[in-house]
Structure formats: structure tokens, C-alpha cells
């Protein structure tokens, strides 16, 4: 052993203090999914209480493929975000990345199918753009909480690609929280479905990652490993 390595080891061990271990990834995943489920249930409950006449036609037109694609995207993005935060969990991160990328296939397919069925601008109802924003914000606003939770976890961990981890965490939160919107949206328009629901996890993730960035940067005690 060279003298400098020897000295470094001695310096590192000198004054060593106990550290608080990171929570297990399973626990973090359960917390995020639990939080998202509670928020989604609250969203559905609120919609049912205030707009119950909408629920029946909305359920009749539910797009199961959109739900499946978003659920796959959320699971993959969550696995990537958690796996990329901790050294030695590369396989989990790679599997997550693969699943999240695979989820883009049905998203593109559904998007193309919906747009092919779209009758054209003439069919747009007045205020359609507002309805798109309303549905997107209905998913983005509650997703801030789980995205911040994941950003806080990432700030304590040792992510190698911080920006990707933040984006994945935001996409995972949005993937889960777009589900109530898809379940109870009464707008029949195809373009509304594509812009307001199908693409929300991808587009909203950029916004949410920017929201979570300050928390990540300010509460980050250590550098990446």
C-alpha cells in the first residue's frame, strides 16, 4: 500500500461518525405508490362527489390501453429512479429503463390511433384547450408530492445521473396520477385524450422535475458515488 493511500485510509477512519442508512428501496417504492394511490383515490372521490353525472359515460369510454401504458411507464420509471440512486442496483435501473421505454410503444400506438380517428379541427368544442389544461393540471398538481418525495430520497442517495433520476421520478408520479383523469374524464374528443391524458406523463415530467430540482439541490449532503 502506498503511503498516501495509507494516510487517506487513516484520515477517512479518523473521526468517523455514525450515518443514517438510506431506507430500503422497497419501502420507498411502497411509500410512493401508497401516496399516489391515496391522491388518486381522493381525486376520484372528489370527482364522484362533485361531478357524478359524468362518471358513467366516462367509465364507458375508458381506454384500458392508456391505463396499461401509463402503469407500465410508472413502474419502469420508478424502478429506474430508485435503482439509479443506489450503487449496485444497476440491474434494477436497467430493467426499469427498459420497461419505461417499452411503455412508449403503446403510447405512440394509442396516440396515432386516436389522432387517426380524430374528425379534425371542426369537431373541437369551444374551450377545448382549457379542458386539456384542466386535465393535465389535475394530474400534475397532486404529482408534485410524490415527485418531491422521490427527489428528497435522491438527494440523500448517490445518483449518478441526477437529472435523469429526477425526470424518472416525476414521470413515475405522473404515470400513476394520470389514471384517475383517464378514468373519469368526460370529454369525448380524441385530441383532448392525446394532449390532456396520454402525453401528460412525458410533458408534465419536465415541469415536475424543474419543481423538484431546488429541493434536490438544497437537501443534497453528498456527491455521487
Amino acid at each position, binding site marked *: 500500500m502506498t503511503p*498516501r*493511500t495509507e494516510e487517506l*485510509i487513516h484520515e*477517512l477512519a479518523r473521526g468517523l461518525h455514525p450515518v443514517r*442508512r438510506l431506507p*430500503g428501496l422497497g419501502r420507498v417504492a411502497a411509500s410512493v405508490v401508497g401516496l399516489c394511490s391515496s391522491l388518486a383515490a381522493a381525486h376520484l372521490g372528489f370527482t364522484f362527489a362533485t361531478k357524478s353525472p359524468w362518471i358513467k359515460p366516462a367509465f364507458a369510454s375508458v381506454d384500458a390501453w392508456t391505463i396499461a401504458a401509463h402503469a407500465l411507464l410508472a413502474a419502469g420509471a420508478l424502478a429506474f429512479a430508485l435503482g439509479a440512486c*443506489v450503487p449496485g442496483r444497476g440491474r434494477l435501473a436497467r430493467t426499469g429503463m427498459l420497461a419505461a421505454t417499452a411503455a412508449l410503444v403503446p403510447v405512440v400506438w394509442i396516440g396515432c390511433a386516436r389522432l387517426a380517428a380524430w374528425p379534425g379541427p371542426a369537431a373541437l368544442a369551444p374551450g377545448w384547450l382549457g379542458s386539456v389544461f384542466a386535465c393535465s393540471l389535475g394530474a400534475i398538481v397532486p404529482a408534485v408530492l410524490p415527485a418531491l418525495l422521490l427527489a428528497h430520497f435522491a438527494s*440523500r442517495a448517490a445518483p449518478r445521473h441526477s437529472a435523469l433520476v429526477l425526470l424518472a421520478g416525476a414521470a413515475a408520479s405522473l404515470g400513476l396520477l394520470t389514471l384517475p383523469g383517464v378514468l373519469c374524464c368526460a370529454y369525448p374528443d380524441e385530441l383532448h385524450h392525446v394532449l390532456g391524458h396520454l402525453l401528460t406523463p412525458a410533458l408534465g415530467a419536465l415541469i415536475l422535475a424543474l419543481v423538484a430540482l431546488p429541493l434536490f439541490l438544497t437537501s443534497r449532503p453528498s456527491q455521487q*458515488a
Partner: protein
Amino acid sequence: MSEQGGGARDRELAWGVLMASAQDGDAAAYEALLHEIVPALRFFVGARLRETSAAEDVVQNVLLSLHRARHTYQPSRPFGPWLRAIARNAVSDAFRASGRRAERETALPDADRIADLREPSRADAPLSARMTRALLDLPPAQREAVELIHVRELSVAEAAARAGVSVSALKVRAHRGYKALRVLLGGRERDDSAH
């Protein structure tokens, strides 16, 4: 570190136990662990780096990264993959850094000859008798700060770690040391010219 035998598994299990103790603040276990993993790290890094001279630096970077990320180790999980991931990241960083250096710098054709002609570094050169006397006249804390930074050519952070003080405290000591040296050397110059 890449062995798959039972011996390697047992060794990594033992390392995991030492790491768990280190997370609880056991400095002796931590020092023992770092001593034990260094040969394995040297083998791992040496097998991946072409520049053998840089390997020891990378090993030291792995130790620093491990120290910063020690809270991310889960005692319920194997220690080997965790350590290998940190080492792999350090090796990738070294590759990236050498790539950046190669973009910025061009090797001189007569680099070896120039290296022979270069001025010896201050760390190698003997100090003049006048400077040695002046250094000996400094208070011990100031002398240590000046020696670490200007004679042994350590960075301020390294020097502070070596002296066991904060970076700002070391800077203050060094600054006072320079001022005192200036006075001492100026006084000696005047004494020398008077004789």
C-alpha cells in the same frame, strides 16, 4: 473482487459486516475494511485502466466515493456489487477525465527530454538555509501550514485534513505564517547586507 468462489463470497460477507459496523460509527472496523478492500480495488482498477500510473489515484477516488456514499449500503444486500458499482463509476470518471485532458492537451514529441530538463519541484528541492531558519522561527501551527501548502505542495483541503483543522483555519494560519516569514526574511536580508 470479480472472483465467484466460496472464498470470495465469504470475504465479501465479512466486508459487509465490517461496513455495517462502520455505518454505526466503528472506526476500527472501517479502517480494517478499507485496508482489506484496497488490494481488490487495485486489481479491479488495474485491469481496466491502461495508464497504470493513474490506477492508484483512481483507487483513492474509490475510497473517497465509498466514504461519501457509505450510508447507501444496505446490510441486507451483498457488499460486492455495491463496491464494484462505486469502483466502476470511478473508473468511468477517470476515462472521461483522461479523454478531456487528451482533447485539451497535445503531447510534446520530446516530452521525456523536457522532463529531464525541468526545474525540480519544490517538494523535491532542498530549502535554502535562510528559509529553513526562518521556518524554524515560526510558531509550530503556522510552520505546519506553510510547510504543507508550499513545501509539500498539498492542496489547501488536503493540508487542512492533514493538520486536523478546518480549511479556513488552515488558511488563516498559512496567511499569518507568510506575513511572519516576510518579516523574518526581510530582517535577515538586512542583517546579511549589514555584515
